[in-house]
């Protein structure tokens, strides 16, 4: 869809800058400017480009993790048998600490070796997935769609901080988000909440209904550890993924959703009794773990039983006006301004509600909004945006020498590691900080060193920043001692740091 205003050459040039920088990932320096069309990029969007197709999927990662757990248990048993053979006296334990049961002793050397092995393996898988994401972003011809992938991945953030999520975080973006960015929000939501990465990250896979068949059996056995509810996923669905915080749901709603979600798990991931067989590493509903009974959420009753119950709740949440408003605010903040214009948020929310949560309908309103085509550049690029746009600027197809994954960590935004399910903040204050700025300059210098003196920044600058390159920056680049320094200066220029 063309931008609304095309009065002079200057506004045309500026519109080009907005299309390629604010809505895109920066112009590739070795390609012609693709114009200002945004929605018409979607037919070119590839949900599964070759780099990503080459990465192992979540099921393989879950199986690897499950095998690791089995090996750990075997190593622990071996250690206990050895200890029993040596007839070591039992240590004296205060009542305030757990008895040194099977779960508790110091890890043996064999266990430590297993742990460091899988750590190394998963670190490598994480690195491979992160590089696939970078290569997809560098090579895409549908940068607006690709940016939406990054937006939704951050909205549904899974942080690769635990061993289990290290190798899974990227697979959720590839399997659940990429295929669903242009359909209905409910499909995106369901795909994400059922994905093993989310079920593991927010502790859903082991959450058990207290009155489920498994819960009752455990009570009858009077076991020391009773399985039970975990409300983590239920809370974050309401707070972060759908309605948004402060939109009127209560603690009781959180617990009801947690109860409805019991049974949502992963085949082969967790060893619990009363489990049905399921393909390893894939979503499974475990009827024996599900809390029986109707649920009431936000004043609505859900009489469905089993798997359909939480799905019905998510279906309602996906089109709830609070969800529409929450998503509209985040989209407008991401694409338009840190403090999004309320009128635009309202129009986006209305598009969501009126279309029944059709994401394309919302995107159409977004790219047609005059607020989105205004100057000056209101957004400070995140480290990810900035790094990708810099690499596209120099025409990189891949940049193994740069160690980009590590560089993003240095800039404060390690890929898939926001540290919390809220994802990265989307305002300038989060990124425009003293040391972070100095690091961008250091990385700009390294990126420039990848091409040496092969690129003339004086020619590249007006192409990357049409209509927005300031005379001061142009002059500073022209005055540089050598082309490589000019390129570093361009990548660190105020206009290039913003979009």
């Amino acid at each position, binding site marked *: 869809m063309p931008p609304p205003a095309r009065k002079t050459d200057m506004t045309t040039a500026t519109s080009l800058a907005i299309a390629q920088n604010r809505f895109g990932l920066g112009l590739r320096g070795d390609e012609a400017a693709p114009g200002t069309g945004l929605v018409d990029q979607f037919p070119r969007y590839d949900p599964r480009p070759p780099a990503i197709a080459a990465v192992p999927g979540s099921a393989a990662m879950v199986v690897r993790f499950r095998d690791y757990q089995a090996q750990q248990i075997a190593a622990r048993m071996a250690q206990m048998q050895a200890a029993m053979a040596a007839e070591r006296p039992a*240590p004296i*334990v*205060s009542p*305030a*600490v*757990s*008895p*040194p049961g099977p779960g*508790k*002793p*110091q890890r043996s050397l064999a266990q430590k070796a297993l742990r460091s092995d899988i750590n190394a393996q998963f670190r490598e898988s994480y690195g491979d997935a992160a590089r696939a994401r970078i290569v997809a972003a560098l090579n895409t011809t549908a940068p607006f769609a690709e940016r939406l992938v990054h937006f939704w991945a951050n909205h549904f953030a899974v942080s690769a*901080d635990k061993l289990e999520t290290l190798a899974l975080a990227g697979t959720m973006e590839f399997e659940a988000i990429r295929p669903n960015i242009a359909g209905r929000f409910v499909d995106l939501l369901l795909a994400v909440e059922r994905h093993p990465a989310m079920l593991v990250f927010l*502790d859903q896979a*082991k*959450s*058990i209904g*207290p009155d489920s068949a498994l819960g009752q059996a455990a009570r009858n056995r009077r076991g*020391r550890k*009773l*399985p*039970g*509810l*975990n*409300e*983590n996923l239920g809370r974050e669905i309401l*707070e972060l993924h759908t309605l948004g*915080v*402060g939109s009127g749901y209560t*603690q009781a709603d959180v617990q009801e959703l947690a109860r409805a979600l019991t049974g949502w798990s992963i085949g082969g991931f967790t060893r619990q009794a009363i489990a049905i067989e399921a393909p390893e590493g894939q979503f499974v509903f475990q009827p024996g773990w599900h809390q029986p009974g109707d649920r009431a959420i936000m004043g609505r009753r859900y009489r469905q039983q089993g798997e359909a119950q939480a799905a019905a709740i998510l279906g309602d949440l996906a089109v709830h006006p609070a969800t529409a408003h929450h998503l509209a605010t985040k989209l407008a903040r991401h694409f338009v301004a840190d403090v999004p214009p309320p009128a635009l948020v309202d129009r986006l929310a209305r598009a969501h509600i009126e279309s029944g949560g059709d994401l394309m309908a919302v995107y159409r309103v977004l790219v047609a909004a005059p607020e989105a085509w205004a100057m000056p550049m209101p957004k400070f690029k995140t480290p990810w945006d900035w790094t990708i746009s810099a690499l596209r600027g120099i025409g990189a197809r891949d940049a193994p020498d740069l160690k980009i994954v*590590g*560089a993003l960590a*240095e*800039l*404060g935004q390690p890929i898939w590691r926001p*540290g*919390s399910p*809220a994802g990265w903040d989307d305002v300038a*204050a*989060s*990124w*425009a*900080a*003293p*040391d*972070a*700025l*100095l*690091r961008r*300059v*250091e*990385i700009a*210098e*390294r990126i420039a060193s990848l091409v040496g003196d092969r690129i003339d920044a004086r020619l590249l600058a007006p192409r990357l920043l049409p209509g927005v390159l300031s005379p*001061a920056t142009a002059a*500073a680049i022209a005055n*540089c001692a050598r082309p490589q*320094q000019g390129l570093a*200066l361009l990548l*660190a220029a*105020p206009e290039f740091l913003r979009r």
Partner: protein
Amino acid sequence: MINRRFLLGQGALAAGLLLTPNLALAAAPTEKRFVFIILRGAMDGLMTVMPLGDPAYAALRGNFAPPAAAGLPLPLDALFSAHPALVETAALYGRGEALFVHAIASPYRERSHFDAQNVLETGGTAAYALSDGWLNRMLPLLPKSGEPALALSATLPMALRGPTPATSYAPSQLPDPDPDLLARITALYAGDPQLHGLWSQAVQARAMAGSDGRGRSNPGALGRLAATFLAKPGGARIAVIELQGWDTHAEQPGRLNNQLKQLDGVIAALRDGLGAAWADTVIVAATEFGRTAAPNGTMGTDHGTGGAAVVVGGAVKGGRVVADWPGLATGQLYQGRDLRPTADLRALFAGLAGEHFGIDPPRMMRTVFNALQVRPLTGLVRG
């Protein structure tokens, strides 16, 4: 070998645009140090400072306790024992240089991490009601210090954001940039108010860090680095350190043990690195809320309300647990599930920082927290 960080500072000087005249010595800077450690993710106060003397505790938690391998709880008084991982902190407690505050919370009463951290850091009563951090609002009340307040991270946490300049620094793995490029950047940013301010602070902070600022960050290194900035004459006097990973919904005993070891390591490194300045130091570690009194179904705890804060430093009047203990019996729990808060984190911050810096605590309460009705917690700092 010439220190390139030093050169960086010199290059900036040569460019003539960065460093304002160093008025630190003339400005009678304060010698008092204050460190705010933000424990992100909600630390379980009940397993950190365990009320083993409350009969309801064993009933609630039973075998849900620190791993046996971590050792025995460290007795603090008749009611409370510290988590065994807090070895160094408990030793400071024994020397009267550490105290714990229990059943404390910010005014926030919902259970969102992100809103609660915003309230913890802005010092407001509701999330996003204030757009600057309470430490930033406190800075103008302090005797002028040589360097701006410092966050030990690449970006600035909310607690330090606001109109008064504050800086950020974290160890970088990146090679040093070319001084000539830096001088050109300095000139290029001179016309951009936002970038000019950030850039000046960054270059000064790097020059301050000197060669100590290199290498991987780990808890000990982070504490040592903070101490480097704080110990220097005319250096930063306020620092913020962030520790992540306290959201222990599952497998809490092992995870919390590691988290507390980290916290203990940061505290020990600050004590060792500050040397003589330790006597002028107050450190407070606080979290956005506590966790449920009872464990959940996955050997963890869910989001709660009241929690614990850790206060250490040579200037702390320690050796006690400060708590108006609400009890853990069913009728005593907040909403039937959480430790009921009986103290306000704003009162703790205002009392600590106010008495430490010689700012009347009620004035702190008024100007920094805009909460006249809350009485500051005083008497926690040596006069």
